[in-house]
């Protein structure tokens, strides 16, 4: 069964190795260039307040050719979906569609072993491919991530560390399951793409932030620090106060000004203090007297690995359930 799985999967393996090697070489060249830039701009040697040096480094990076960086970043998101669509969905569906399951299930190998071999080999290849790509991207963008402090923000977080492995294995088992249920390759591929995309989006948008409990900070509103007062034009004259989060390395989930009772501060502006006619100083003094507070909910940079482990674990658990369902279904219901 191992030889046969390899034989069926041979072409995809060579294509994948070729693509990964190409991206790997380009990323190595990219990383060298970044390293040169990093050294030339003395970022490493910088002591004390390095904001200017880092900003200079980042603007040089932005001005340089970083197509491969952007491309590789996109690839980390695309690869799990591609694996689900091109490796997962056809794995069983193609056999059912061509009727070859009636051939392979009548050799001296049980269906359970047949499926186990396929899941382990192709699923393993999925994990290795996604892992290598993510490792290459994570390593080559290390300097930039250090400079921006954006590693934990959703767009970058999803293309770093171990979560791409979790997504690849989840997408693969999802594709296998859908192919098994739909029994036709092309519809199964389409369904895999749709459901995987929705699942990945939901994870990033609604689930991830709850996997590790976020830091929650409430401070009295310091009216002497920078802030913006917004007053809507018109009848309502709604007034809100915005304060920058000052958390450069964090993933900020919520940043708002609240009243002493915990409500989001939003009320009609009192034109006596705030508004076009009044001075900014008068407005600030009046705001300072209201007892407002500043509330921040965020994941600091040190939540990066706890989040990565929790999210990968959750994806692997879903994949394990899907795989168990596949075993049960091939034994009981597939004919």
């Amino acid at each position: 069964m191992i030889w046969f799985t390899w034989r069926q999967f041979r072409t995809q393996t060579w294509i994948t190795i070729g693509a990964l090697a190409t991206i790997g070489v380009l990323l190595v060249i990219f990383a060298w260039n970044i390293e040169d830039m990093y050294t030339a701009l003395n970022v490493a040697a910088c002591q004390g307040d390095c904001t200017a040096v880092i900003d200079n480094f980042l603007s040089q990076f932005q001005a340089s050719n970083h197509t491969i960086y952007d491309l590789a970043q996109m690839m980390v998101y695309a690869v799990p979906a591609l694996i689900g669509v091109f490796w997962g969905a056809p794995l069983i569906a193609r056999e059912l569609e061509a009727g070859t399951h009636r051939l392979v299930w009548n050799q001296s190998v049980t269906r359970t072993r047949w499926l186990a071999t396929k899941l382990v080999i192709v699923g393993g290849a999925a994990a290795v491919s996604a892992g290598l790509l993510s490792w290459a991207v994570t390593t080559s963008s290390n300097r930039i991530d250090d400079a921006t402090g954006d590693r934990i923000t959703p767009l970058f977080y999803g293309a770093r560390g171990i979560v791409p492995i979790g997504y690849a294995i989840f997408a693969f088992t999802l594709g296998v399951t859908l192919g098994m249920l739909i029994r036709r390759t092309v519809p199964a591929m389409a369904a895999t793409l749709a459901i995987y995309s929705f699942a990945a989006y939901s994870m990033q948008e609604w689930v991830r932030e709850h996997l590790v409990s976020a830091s929650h900070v409430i401070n009295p509103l310091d009216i002497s620090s920078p802030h913006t007062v917004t007053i809507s034009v018109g009848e309502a004259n709604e007034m809100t106060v915005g304060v920058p989060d000052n958390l450069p390395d964090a993933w900020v989930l919520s940043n708002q000004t609240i009243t002493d009772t915990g409500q989001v501060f939003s009320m009609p502006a009192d034109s006596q203090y705030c508004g076009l006619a009044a001075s900014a100083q008068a407005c600030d003094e009046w705001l300072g007297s209201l007892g407002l507070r500043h509330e921040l909910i965020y994941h600091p940079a040190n939540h990066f690995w706890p989040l990565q482990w929790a999210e990968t674990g959750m994806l692997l658990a879903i994949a394990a359930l899907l795989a168990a369902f596949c075993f049960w279904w091939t034994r009981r219901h597939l004919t």
Partner: protein
Amino acid sequence: MSSPVLQAEGLSKRYGRREALTDCTLAIPPGRVVGLVGPNGAGKTTLLHIAVGLLSPTAGSIEVLGAHPASGPAQLAKVGFVAQDAPTYAGLSIADHLRFGAHTNPGWDQQVADDRISKLGLDPSQKAGKLSGGQRAQLALTIAIAKRPELLILDEPVASLDPLARREFLQGLMAYIAEHEASVILASHLISDLERVCDYLIVLVASRVRVAGEVEDLLASHYRLTGARRDPADLPPGAEVIEESHTDRQSTLIVHSTTPIDDASFTVEQITLEDLVLAYMSQVTDPLPALETTR
């Protein structure tokens, strides 16, 4: 060894309200070449798929070579199966298929496989997708044979073949059986395909087994009676009418009887296997319980 190769008790398979197989009871003795005959949609494939474990029955029980179908690697190794339309992997070569067989079957006989492929004049490097229907059926049979099964089950193996390929296929099959003493079950909707090779017959019509038994016994216990027109009800006891046709003056009956028909008013003739099968196939309106010949 005389325990049956296939024993079924009240075997039934339903798809929703449709009966694919109804109350099938069979005991096929070993060492036979069994013809499973019936019109398209009669339930032949359903029965064979249950026998190889591709389907599970809704009711009843089945044992193949004394065990539950597809119950484990040992059971799978004992049964060879060529599915309808002889599925193969279009992108893989003949040699790849043989390597696949060798890797998935502990009892694989590479010699048998290589000999058959070279005798058929096939190029091992050719892709299965480029083979003709007959060649593909031969490849599928080669894989099934080279795993050295005790029971070989073939579902409409010759249906899609031209007459020459049919003959070659059956010749290859017979050569194997003669050499290895395996039992074979062959399904077909045409008895003429199987007439020359099978020594045991099962007729399956509209999901029910109409008759099953040794070909020799079946031929010895069925008669065509021709005579002046009369009511088939007053036949001698023990004779059962399978098919009747009447003209104004004459009645022609095909009857089953375990004792010789001794009735001077009829001309009694032996019938051919094809006539026998056709008689049972045309008996669809009569929901008689399955009839088993005595042995």
